[in-house]
């Protein structure tokens, strides 16, 4: 699994590198705007951290290209990507994620909590093939009710 590890490091170090550049640029803007002396500025710690991040990402990158260099990694990446795209699991994960996103960003805004939650749990469990429809229905209804009861009645906290 060493190869997989190297690939992970390769990809992630590039991402981290980009992030650190972003941080450094933004922090510099803050430094200019804040106008205070550098070591007291709000930008001080972000700059330090951003710089550290830069260094570490380079270390990681160097470690990841140790066997085969950049070309080897890129080939591996393409292979992995192809495999992933075709994999059924990836599709399921993505769909599940999208359902979660819809629940969070759309359903909860337009429907009352218990309704949105009921829909979400029901549909997701169905999608995941959690059991027969009746079983899912019962579990969803019970859990939904339990959660609402527990939080709104017992703990007296408002729900989304």
């Amino acid at each position, binding site marked *: 699994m060493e190869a997989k*590890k190297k690939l*992970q*490091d390769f*990809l*992630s170090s590039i991402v*981290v590198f980009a*992030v650190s550049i972003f*941080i450094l640029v*933004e922090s510099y803007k*803050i430094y200019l*705007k*804040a106008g*205070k*002396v550098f*070591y*007291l500025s*709000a*930008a*001080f*710690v*972000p700059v330090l*951290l951003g710089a*550290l*991040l830069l260094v*570490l*990402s380079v*270390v*990681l990158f160097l*470690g990841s290209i140790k066997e085969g260099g950049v070309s080897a990694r890129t080939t591996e990446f393409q292979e992995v990507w192809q495999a992933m795209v075709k994999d*059924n*699991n990836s599709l*399921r*994960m993505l*769909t*599940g*994620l999208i359902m*979660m996103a819809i*629940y*969070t*960003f759309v359903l*909860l*805004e337009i429907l009352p909590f218990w309704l949105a*939650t009921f829909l*979400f*749990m029901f549909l*997701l*469990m169905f999608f*995941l093939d*959690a*059991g027969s429809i009746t079983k*899912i229905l019962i*579990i969803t209804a019970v*859990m939904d009710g339990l*959660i609402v009861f527990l*939080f709104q009645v017992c*703990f007296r*906290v*408002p*729900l*989304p």
Partner: protein
Amino acid sequence: MAITYLLQSFGAVLSPMNLAVLLISTFTGLVMGMLPGLSATMAVALLTGLTYSLSPTSAIISLIGVYVGAISGGCQAAILLNIPGTPASAATALDGFPLAKQGKGGLAVFLATTASCIGTLISVICVLAFTPLLTKLSLQFGSWEFFLLSLFGVVICGNLTSKGNAVKGWISGIIGLLVAQVGLDQVDAFPRFAFGNVNVMAGLALIPIMIGLFGFPEIIKAFKKTEEHVLKISKFKVSEGFTYIRQNTVALIRSSLIGVCVGIIPGVGEDVGGWLSYWATKSSSKDPEKFGTGEMSGVISAEAGNNSCIGGAIIPILSLAVPGSAPAAVLLAAFMMHGYRPGPLLMNESPEFLYMVCVDLFMAAVAMWMIAQLVAKFSVKILGVKKEILMPIIYVLCIVGSYVINHLMFDVKVMFFFGIVGFFLSMMEFPAAPFLLGVILGSMTDSNLRRALTISEGSFMPMFQRPICLVFLVAILALILSQFGVFEKLKRKKV
């Protein structure tokens, strides 16, 4: 005099009404600690409101009960689901979850709760015996010390969790620290990385980040269609559990003491306590590589460490009216609401208060242990539930947990965003725990460094002149160098 107070307090707690209060509140605390999203701070806060109308004695009993319960309860979710119920249990998940995967979930929970109980008990002894001494220690911590402490915490966490390549752990930690910088800064209120969004300016709340970071990877992984059979939880013998505890007595005591010291330091609480104790045990163990794969002593140390912080956090409350950790802060406010005056006058005004708190802690620890055993019988079954049913429910709880803190949908969106981040972190095998610790310690790092520099006019010299700082500096350096095999090379040279 002390004996009288102690007896009085025991008498008070053992009254039927108060016993009921104790049991109910400890149970509530356990449940709230277990649910990812409800933290100990919240649990204590919620109960402060609910118990206001009770007599001060009963109210204090309930608050301490829920505090102990919540900090202990987090271990169950951490072990069984790999989602810490409260930030304090993040270290427990490291060895707890692998144990659960091996079918030893029940045993792990038993060890965790027993360690929690013992840790709390040891901290009670410290409170009784050492309050004045330990208070002096907490006052020694100035801005430089806090800064270095937070760095130390992140470095340790990085070392501990990255299975050999600490660089990834540190990257994770640094990004966490950076995330904590988002928002209005603590010193000047200058908006950082806010991009004009008012919600972001208020900073990113910790609990949603924790839930997203740890919860999403587990939830999303559950979407895969796997043939994995549901794990059987093997029954374990209680005596076997106690044997493990006895074998780890040294680790237990050490972790508890570490936890108490961490608790005393204002602002660092149960989460750091768990990590430091875990690290201490791992460093002094004969086979450190086993940590992270299901090492019992890891679970024991982390849980003893985070629970003993409770006593530690209460010490500065009693003597200085300064809370040692976040839930302790709510406790302090509750104490004041009920008419007590924690602080230097406490022993003059209401000397029995100290003993009452200690007795309450003691009883809560015992009650927690008993109730936890009962609860564990049910919670362990959760692992037996099919993932497909469990995960949607857990996700709903995640949403609720994120919302309930500030009643803002924004926090829920934060959770979602960091969930994606957490997912990628786990795919690329970056440890999430240093990230979380970075978020917790980030503002402490920032404001203390700048404050220290303000006082010293930009000079870093004081950092090298203060004894506690030097200890930290050496420790941090040693930790970093050890990752690069410097020590092994030196050893080889000698041989």
